[in-house]
């Protein structure tokens, strides 16, 4: 718990805090030092700024600068109290309602909605009208007027937090309501509430000044910025500089509060995802990869040599070479963070701009894609089809399925609309989408998950691409739908000879569908193996062996043939040195593995494995 977490303070936090600190110092010091000067009546009435009175004097000849400085204390105290009332009542109301029973929850939310619909300033005016004008009633008026906003925000936030698993579990453990609120709900909604609090503080200064300006707030002989502003405005034509002081005060305090709130919110949020460290120079020199395994047979549709992809100096992909031949289904398997999706997206030239990449050679269907500075020709859109993991997020929810399906034909091929629609219907029928004509006029959300993924595949196939890249196409689907989509991909490959690159974390999916499998680990292909060898367990890299041993296959049995977990974690991108990236987790690691990154070399079964333990002698015997 005391583990120090040194994080740099956000600049806006520092600036906001300094501004507010200055205001607080003024609030403390000014009435003591200039209290009398601010009250002193002089004969210099309504003078403009001079060396004696920097901001001039008011109608009674009092120095406006002193009065502004002295008024800081009252203004800040009132704003602080009003904000405290608003946040306190609002938060307790909003968050408390969520944890109550179902009935109170429903009614409470409606009541809060109703309260929010009243304009705060009207509420404030009503409250001050009921009580006699004065500083206490005005503070409560503003506080009550703004509390529905806080109630609404905390209500919404608390409802979402209390549905999270950790609150559910805490409830099941028997944690009481008050503790749930103070321990789990409030800390986790604090960040947005803080932002709104700071905004609320700034707003309440303005609102309080407004009420004082109207004469409903602070009464003579006390004065706050609002009152000064009022008298300044009265004299605006005679002495414009008089209203400058209170205006600047309100502005700077509001700005400080806003910056402080934003800065706090940013600082408060614990880091959820550690980004790769910037500028780690640990990336090893990429060993020049020998020719890709299993050469010969079939035209090469896609070719990739020595692909490296980096994000902020950390290498996500470290020298991947991959060939895909016509009619071939190649699987790319690995754990999350192994670089498999990045490799696939690089193949399609779809990497986000934040990533930098280089390759020695990169061509798909004869198009050279190796130069990062040259945008890929639009022809590429018809040469590569891509199927993503989540079809729900890949369709535009506002457009008909048909419009999106035919886009590639209309835009890139110039096919007339009607003909494109006919082709699309035909494709939908081929991927066994039921009632394809009417699907064309439906919106994506009207299709089931399986139907959407089929439609996505139909879309990818419309331009008859030479290469289909499918990135975890079945991960988001149910098992029966997954089987269905795998069958479909198999069929498309058999019927049209479309080459495919299938990315998956599931070695069973890959070995069911693919002919050749590349296993990725820490940004590199560590083994390439024909699927028959993979199925028979004839694999050579210890990582591939570990993956197989950890996956529940048909013959797994918890008593006789238990799964064997793979201890440890993969290295973070950028943490790979000159050693074998798998060495820390490898049961066969030798001293050599920690000094020298192994080159991919042929295995006795005709595959390729990057491992020092793959004995070259075995290869020679064959």
């Amino acid at each position, binding site marked *: 718990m005391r583990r120090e977490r040194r994080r740099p303070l956000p600049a806006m936090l520092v600036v906001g805090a300094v501004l507010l600190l200055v205001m607080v110092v003024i609030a403390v010091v000014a009435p003591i030092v200039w209290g009398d000067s601010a009250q002193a009546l002089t004969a210099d009435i309504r003078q403009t700024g001079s060396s004696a009175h920097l901001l001039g004097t008011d109608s009674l000849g009092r120095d406006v600068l002193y009065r502004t400085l002295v008024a800081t204390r009252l203004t800040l105290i009132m704003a602080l109290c009003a904000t405290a009332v608003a946040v306190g009542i609002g938060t307790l109301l909003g968050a408390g309602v969520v944890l109550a029973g179902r009935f109170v929850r429903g009614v409470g939310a409606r009541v809060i909605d109703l309260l929010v619909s009243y304009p705060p300033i009207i509420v404030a005016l009503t409250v001050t009208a009921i009580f006699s004008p004065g500083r206490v009633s005005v503070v409560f008026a503003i506080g009550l007027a703004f509390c529905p906003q806080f109630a609404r925000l905390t209500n919404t936030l608390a409802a979402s937090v209390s549905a999270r698993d950790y609150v559910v*579990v805490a409830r099941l453990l028997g*944690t009481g309501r008050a503790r749930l609120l103070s321990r789990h709900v409030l800390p986790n909604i604090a960040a947005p509430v803080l932002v709104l609090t700071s905004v609320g503080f700034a707003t309440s200064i303005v609102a309080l000044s407004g009420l004082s300006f109207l004469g409903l707030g602070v009464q003579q002989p006390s004065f706050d910025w609002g009152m000064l502003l009022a008298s300044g405005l009265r004299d605006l034509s005679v002495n414009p500089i008089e209203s400058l002081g209170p205006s600047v005060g309100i502005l700077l305090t509001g700005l400080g509060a806003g910056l402080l709130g934003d800065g706090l919110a940013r600082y408060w949020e614990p880091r959820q995802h550690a980004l790769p460290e910037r500028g780690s120079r640990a990336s090893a020199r990429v060993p020049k990869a020998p020719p890709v395994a299993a050469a010969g047979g079939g035209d090469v549709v896609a070719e990739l040599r020595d692909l490296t992809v980096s994000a902020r100096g950390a290498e996500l992909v470290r020298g991947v070479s991959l060939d895909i031949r016509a009619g071939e289904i190649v699987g790319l398997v690995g754990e999350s963070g192994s670089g498999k999706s990045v490799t696939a997206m690089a193949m399609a030239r779809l990497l986000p701009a934040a990533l930098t990449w280089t390759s020695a050679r990169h061509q798909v269907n004869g198009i050279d894609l190796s130069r990062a500075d040259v945008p890929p020709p639009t022809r590429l859109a018809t040469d590569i089809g891509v199927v993503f993991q989540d079809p729900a997020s890949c369709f535009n929810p506002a457009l008909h399925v048909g419009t999106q399906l035919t886009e590639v034909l209309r835009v890139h091929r110039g096919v007339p609309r009607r003909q494109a629609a006919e082709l699309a219907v035909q494709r939908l029928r081929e991927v066994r989408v039921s009632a394809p004509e009417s699907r064309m006029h439906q919106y994506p959300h009207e299709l089931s998950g399986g139907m959407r993924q089929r439609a996505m595949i139909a879309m990818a196939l419309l331009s008859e691409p030479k290469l289909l890249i499918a990135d975890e196409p079945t991960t988001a689907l149910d*098992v029966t739908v997954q089987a269905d989509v795998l069958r479909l991909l198999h069929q498309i490959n058999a019927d049209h000879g479309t080459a495919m690159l299938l990315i998956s974390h599931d070695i069973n999916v890959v070995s069911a569908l693919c002919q050749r499998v590349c296993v990725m680990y820490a940004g590199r292909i560590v083994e390439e193996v024909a699927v028959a060898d*993979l199925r028979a367990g004839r694999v050579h890299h210890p990582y591939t062996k570990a993956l197989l041993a950890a996956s529940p*296959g048909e013959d797994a049995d918890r008593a006789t043939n238990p*799964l*064997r977990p793979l201890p440890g*974690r993969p290295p973070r991108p950028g943490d790979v040195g000159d050693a074998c990236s798998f060495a820390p987790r490898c049961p066969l690691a030798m001293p050599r593995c920690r000094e020298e990154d192994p080159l991919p070399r042929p295995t006795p079964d005709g595959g390729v494995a990057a491992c020092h333990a793959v004995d070259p002698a075995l290869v020679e015997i064959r």
Partner: protein
Amino acid sequence: MSEPASESTTQRRSVLQVTGISAGYGSGSRSARVLHDVSMAIEPGRTMGVVGESGSGKSTLARVLVGQLEPLSGSVSLGGRDIATMNRRELRAARRQVQLVPQDPFASLDPRMTVGRALAEAIDPRSSLRRIDSDRITELLETVALEGDAAHRLPHEFSGGQRQRIVIARALAVQPEVVIADEVTSALDSSVQAEILDLLLDLQRQSGLALVFITHDLSIARYMCDEVSVLYLGRMIEQGDIGLLTEPAHPYTELLRASVPDPSGRMFDDEPPAVVAADPGDPAHPPTGCAFHPRCPQGPRVLGERTVCVDTLPTLVPAGRPEQVAACHFPLVRVDADD
């Protein structure tokens, strides 16, 4: 419908038993019942698998089992006593015996609470967490193979697998008799998945924990479970010992079995009829008769004369192996007539 299940288990001592429960969400005209007449008994030291696809009601069942959702009808017994007969204090104590390990280890730990405090809360949710029993926490962390210094760290400093270990440790902190594991490995990489499955099996061997293992992955269910219940659109369609996953009596279970990606590639050899790919439908308004009939490869869409499937809801009857029940008019494995 609940009879076969309860009959077979009354001889053994069940720690958690639900009989004929229905459950749903919403109220009034917008209410939706998504779980219908489900019964199951969970015994110490054994693992009950709950298998089904999205919309099958398995998560709703989990919520009923842990007491997060009141069933609309049916009864829940804990330690052999109907919870309807318990007073508040007894119920609270009994409920603590059933703990949940949710699916997503990134959502089930409070991001602002150190691991030590999260465990302390589980040990005594009524304590202020000011004084923490660090020996007990270290012991818990060791049970799930984590270092003691993990107690001082925040969840975001851990990997998915480690977080899931922490969540399991938290569930164990109350020394529960039943742990409901809801898709606990589906957010994890396969190498990590094996580690979590192993841990659960180890804990079960050591303490005789009863496990309810909810999963959509049949190969994991086969590996983990002793018995299995198959749900389809909120109804139990097959139940029995784990062997039923290899010899299912219900066509839906058979479809699930055949859908597991088979590394041998044989899954592409024979194509099932196109009807199986139909949309299962809305769990709140399931098809009439047998809810599976529109997708059934042996059903009325394929064999036109089987109209009974459209008209009559099948009940769970003995089918296949001993203690196996299936709700199908035309089960794939029939018991002998004299049985």
